[in-house]
């Protein structure tokens, strides 16, 4: 089997651009990346089906000159599935926009909190307490001397250029201690 070089190139371009877009934190960009990738996969099936031939209808053409019908059936299924997934992701992206008015995926709050505790060397929730220290002595502030937020906070400080709408919030959280 000799694959068609044009199709191979198309698949290569679709995959590379798709991967690039999928790496974005923007929900819609990543969706476009997914679309390009899934179309690349569909074309890959066309390459897999081998040489182009006549329409694969039994009785219309003789078997030797037909193109392989099975990959076409597979691609049709894959296209339908891709369409459904795209519709769902669009709905999800819209819902995310409704709720947060940004297209950028936020960090997990609990994850960020635990990470911050680790970088601040904050042992206040540890199982091991210093028995020798009197109860009422305040816990020494951690080296950087920055306030440790308690309770859920939105950490928008990672989410830079793309969201200008959040500039005011950003400055607040940045003062909340990024260099901990």
């Amino acid at each position: 089997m000799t694959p068609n070089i044009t199709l191979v190139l198309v698949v290569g371009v679709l995959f590379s651009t798709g991967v690039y877009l999928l790496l974005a934190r923007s929900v819609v960009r990543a969706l476009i990346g997914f679309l390009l990738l899934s179309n690349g996969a569909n074309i890959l099936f066309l390459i897999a089906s081998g040489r182009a031939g006549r329409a694969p209808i039994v009785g219309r053409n003789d078997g030797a000159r037909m193109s392989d019908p099975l990959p076409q059936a597979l691609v049709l299924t894959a296209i339908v599935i891709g369409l459904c997934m795209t519709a769902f992701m669009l709905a999800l992206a819209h819902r995310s926009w409704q709720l947060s008015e940004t297209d950028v995926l936020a960090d997990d709050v609990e994850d960020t909190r635990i990470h911050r505790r680790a970088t601040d060397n904050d042992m206040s929730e540890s199982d091991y307490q210093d028995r020798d220290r009197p109860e009422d002595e305040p816990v020494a502030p951690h080296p950087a001397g920055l306030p440790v937020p308690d309770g859920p906070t939105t950490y928008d400080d990672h989410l830079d250029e793309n969201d200008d709408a959040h500039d005011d919030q950003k400055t607040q959280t940045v003062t909340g201690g990024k260099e901990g």
Partner: protein
Amino acid sequence: MGLEDLVPLPVILPLVGAGITLAAAGHTRVQRFTSLSVVTAVLAVSMALLWATDQRGPQVVHVGGWPPTEGIVLVADRLSALMLIVSSAVTLAVLRYSVGLGRSAFDEEHDGEAPLPIFHPTLLVLTAGVSTTFVSGDLFHLYVGFEMLLAASFVLLTLGGTQDRVRAGISYAYVSLLSSLVFLVAIALIYASAGTVNMAILAQRLDALPPGTSLALHAMLLLGFAIKAAVFPLSGWLPDSYPTAPAPVTAVFAGLLTKVGIYAMIRTQTLLFPDGRLNTLLLWAALLTMLVGILGAVAQDDIKRMLSFTLVSHIGYMLFGIAVGSEKGYSSAIFYVVHHIAIQTTLFLVAGLIERFGGSTSLSRLSGLATSAPLLGVLFFVPALNLAGIPPFSGFLGKVGLMQAGADLGTPLAYLLLAGSALTSLLTLYAVSRVWGRAFWRAPEEAMAGSGPGAVRASREHALTYGVVMPTTVLVVVGVGLTVVAGPLFHITDRAAADLLNRSTYVQSVLVNSTADGGAP
């Protein structure tokens, strides 16, 4: 009407049930009755299938009467039947639990009192998708099964559409879609090189491929499945997304979705690429999955997140069994899958009960549960010890089996894995004992002050109703019961593993039957 006619039922029944429950969207009773009876029927069918496959060999259905070169085949062997039984049993318990919760439990934040008629149909589609992957004998059909359960899981994960769930849902959806895409590309390449997607025929043809080509195909398939199974470098998505969903949803996800990936890996490693060239790589992945996962669990403050990390960590055990590649390794891995589906689901349901009773799953807020809810203590304690692998329980038996298989392999890496799995077991014990020490044994006054005691007390009255405690208790008992039936169960998994390694049983039953009664309709 032969026994093989049972094979499509675990797929068809839930789909029909999904249609009925969707049509009966306004009628809660009809929905509950339909889905409970459908899943019970699937459980019964799966048991019959296990008997049939154990006594008479793999059951094969050629869908539409097409020969395997052209159409889809459904194959149930011992492994599939066993997985079907466990998955439907767990789904039944979760379904009963969610019925016990009542509908208003799913509307936590700003759904108000609106009922969620979509829950039952979606859960049934998820069941159908999971069953499809277990009985499929065709790679592309396996992909369709994956997409069915993924689409359903997206909906379940984002129920209610709150901010947390949408955020978790988006990252979960992208990772899942990417893994499916890798799988799809692998299928296209396999078709290009072998000219078929039927697994039995592939088993014969892939051996003839040049080693480089087959290694590339093998690696791509494993990559796709490893993302689904949350194997270490590809596991970051799981603890981020699972804890935000409602308790029954997380429970069913934790029990089933990653195990579907493990099942697909077992099939790839035994049926398609039995040469074991990637086993060393898989052993390293297993070691890292165990250790990194459990170290993550130790650092968590939230019970649900801690459980999600133990889920990742214990995937490493199953991968260990697969990577050893011996009959004993596969047998123990299958046993461990059965054990882990039951236990992990139970623990997530218990976490749901703790959340209902204590108003939170955060360890800094919970305290004194051992005195205020002793029953909850028992329900948590038994599966927690089981997960950690304390001797009488099935977790211990599974781990011993895996370690024996590793010791039989005898390489330095295998002994490293042995040490790693013992360490993981100890750290699991530490992680669950942290929960026990804080949420259950800590004196009640100190932490309850912050979280509105009046509201908590009012909700406590209705927290532990019969409807939610009963299914959880049943699952705890099933988990303990796995120890009692461990002997016969290990015999079945031994035979299943022998079948897997001796591929001819599977291949013969797919191909021979097709010449006997096959041909186009």
